[in-house]
């Protein structure tokens, strides 16, 4: 197993209230576990505020963990001193939704890529240039791009640069947080194809965070669905989307637009929005929006347990009617 996340918890403190603000604990991630194999793409889907980006950041220790372990290649990196963690960083890379925000506007692309190589002592002298050129070539950018500044590139090209900067360190896993959400459809397809090629050719594993179920289905072998800081269903992507078990997964799947006008639209969806993670509902966190709710859902928190081919956190997984899609 390349990456193992166990019982991950991340909290933030927020001050709320007037006229006397109090500190509240916001449990952004509340007990999340999953694992990722070499060369596999693992998707995490959910709506805004469900904690999917925080999971990504916690894997790379960009936020502090409250509890839990992140085991990478057999090493628990959640408690590793920063100095030792730095040696592992080249192997764990991240790409972001807005590549422009992660590139210095005053640094040439070649310098930005070379800096990463030098900082980690991967190469020196002429060898650095060669690595940079290879990485740019691999993502489909001309070698001259190295001399140019970020503002000279389009959104899709900037995302290619973001990927090149991760690649130049030859990572074994890339955590990608909404990497194609800001791109137009035709460019999105180019970037997805590029990442699929890297996965196949260089055996790079991906943790792929997205709110777009279509993109996740296309790219990821396995997927976890998150709701208010917890994983509520996980398994093979195809099975989850073709036969979703958890009522929330069903809801997500049924409201995801399908580009086919001849597919009859489902009956009207229930009103309602996810509650605030500051004050999550008792028992099953989805119960106020669930059409199958019973008393046990209001009091007892369901745990992830094997069902079908995957894991589901629902008290009634066995007795629910088959999902209508």
């Amino acid at each position, binding site marked *: 197993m390349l990456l193992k996340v166990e019982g991950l918890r991340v909290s933030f403190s927020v001050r709320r209230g007037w006229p006397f603000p109090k500190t509240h604990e916001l449990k952004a991630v509340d007990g999340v576990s999953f694992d990722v194999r070499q060369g596999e793409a693992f998707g995490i889907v959910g*709506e*805004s505020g469900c904690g999917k980006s925080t999971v990504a950041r916690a894997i790379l220790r960009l936020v502090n963990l409250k509890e839990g372990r992140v085991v990478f290649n057999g090493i628990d990196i959640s408690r590793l001193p920063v100095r030792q963690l730095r040696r592992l960083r080249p192997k764990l890379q991240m790409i972001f939704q807005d590549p422009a925000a992660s590139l210095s506007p005053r640094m040439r692309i070649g310098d930005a890529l070379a800096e990463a190589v030098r900082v980690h002592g991967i190469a020196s002298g002429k060898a650095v240039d060669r690595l940079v050129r290879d990485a740019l070539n691999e993502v489909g950018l001309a070698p001259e791009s190295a001399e140019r500044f970020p503002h000279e590139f*389009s959104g*899709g090209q900037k995302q290619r640069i973001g990927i090149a900067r991760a690649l130049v360190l030859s990572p074994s896993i890339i955590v990608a947080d909404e990497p194609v959400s800001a791109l*137009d*459809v*035709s*460019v*999105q*397809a*180019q970037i*997805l*194809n590029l990442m*699929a090629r890297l996965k196949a050719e260089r055996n790079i594993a991906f943790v792929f965070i997205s*709110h*777009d*179920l*279509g*993109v996740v*289905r*296309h*790219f990821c072998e396995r997927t976890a669905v998150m709701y208010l800081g917890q994983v509520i269903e996980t398994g093979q992507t*195809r099975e989850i*989307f073709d036969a979703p078990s958890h009522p929330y997964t069903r*809801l*997500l*799947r049924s*409201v*995801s*637009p*399908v*580009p*086919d*006008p*001849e*597919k009859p*639209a489902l009956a*009207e*969806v229930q*009103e*309602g*929005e*996810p509650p605030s993670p500051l004050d999550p509902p008792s028992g099953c966190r989805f119960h106020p929006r669930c059409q199958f709710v019973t008393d046990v859902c209001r009091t007892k928190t369901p745990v992830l347990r094997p069902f079908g081919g995957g894991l589901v956190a629902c008290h009634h997984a066995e007795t629910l009617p088959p999902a209508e*899609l």
Partner: protein
Amino acid sequence: MSVLVVDDLRTSLQINGGEYHAVREISFSIEEGETLAVVGESGCGKSMLAMSIMRLLPSVASITAGRILLDSLPIEAVSETGMERVRGAKIGMVFQEPMTALNPVLTVGEQISEPLRDHLGLSRREARKAAIGLMEKVRIPSAASRYSSYPHEFSGGMRQRVVIALAIACHPRLLIADEPTTALDVTVQRQILDLLDVLRTEGKMGMLLITHNLGIVAGHADRVAVMYGGDLVESATVTDLFRNPAHPYSRALLASLPRVDRDLSELASIPGRVPTLVNMPDGCRFMDRCPHAMEKCNSMPPPADVGDANLHMVRCWLYVQGGEHAA
């Protein structure tokens, strides 16, 4: 009866002394109770088109040719002050980012009351009552008590409902929704789109739905217009476009969509990118990225009909009589 007729519209931008066409010779119409979706990627001119209809163009842009008829009223003949009576009353608008469309220091109730008093001449008390009615209509829970809340106290989805209440307050003939759900989560997106569908049917409004999401088009539009680089390259009924896309761009766009309901081996991607406005070719603007490009494409093809009589229009030389036919 047509709520909106756009005839040969051209909107140009003045950039560094040169004139560039952001919208080129576009024609379409929207019937009462009908939704026309305009789809295209960023920079295709879809928002410029909406701004032209509302006459809210930035100072560097102007309509240089064509006509726009709103409920048979030629918009270009209306004075600037006259336009203020048209916007909000005859045209309702819903934008992508509800927070920027609302005034942060006024309560949502006051904001919904304002057009009611300005356009319909209601008294303060009547407007308050009508505003609460509108808030109920867009399904804001406990509307009466939410009347005096400020926009920041609402969630994104609720804010968009407020904007919709504002847009439909004066029973407009035309509703322009520019990426109305792009900033929202999918569950909320579906609720908002369903709400717009209901309101459109009830109010017999025509709707111009601007979006980049073909999934939304499939579920919520009657007809589609595909735009590329300021040109309307194809228009058809929704079923027709998804079943038989004709223009090479529409075909490529549909083939590049990842789908949640089935497995695709590889996504077709369109090589290259949209040229910038300054570097647009004179002829067909898709020619540099098109697998079927030929000599003729250096000039813009005239509109051509595809197939049977259900108004499937495409602008591509492949479909012009005497041109080579598509494979």
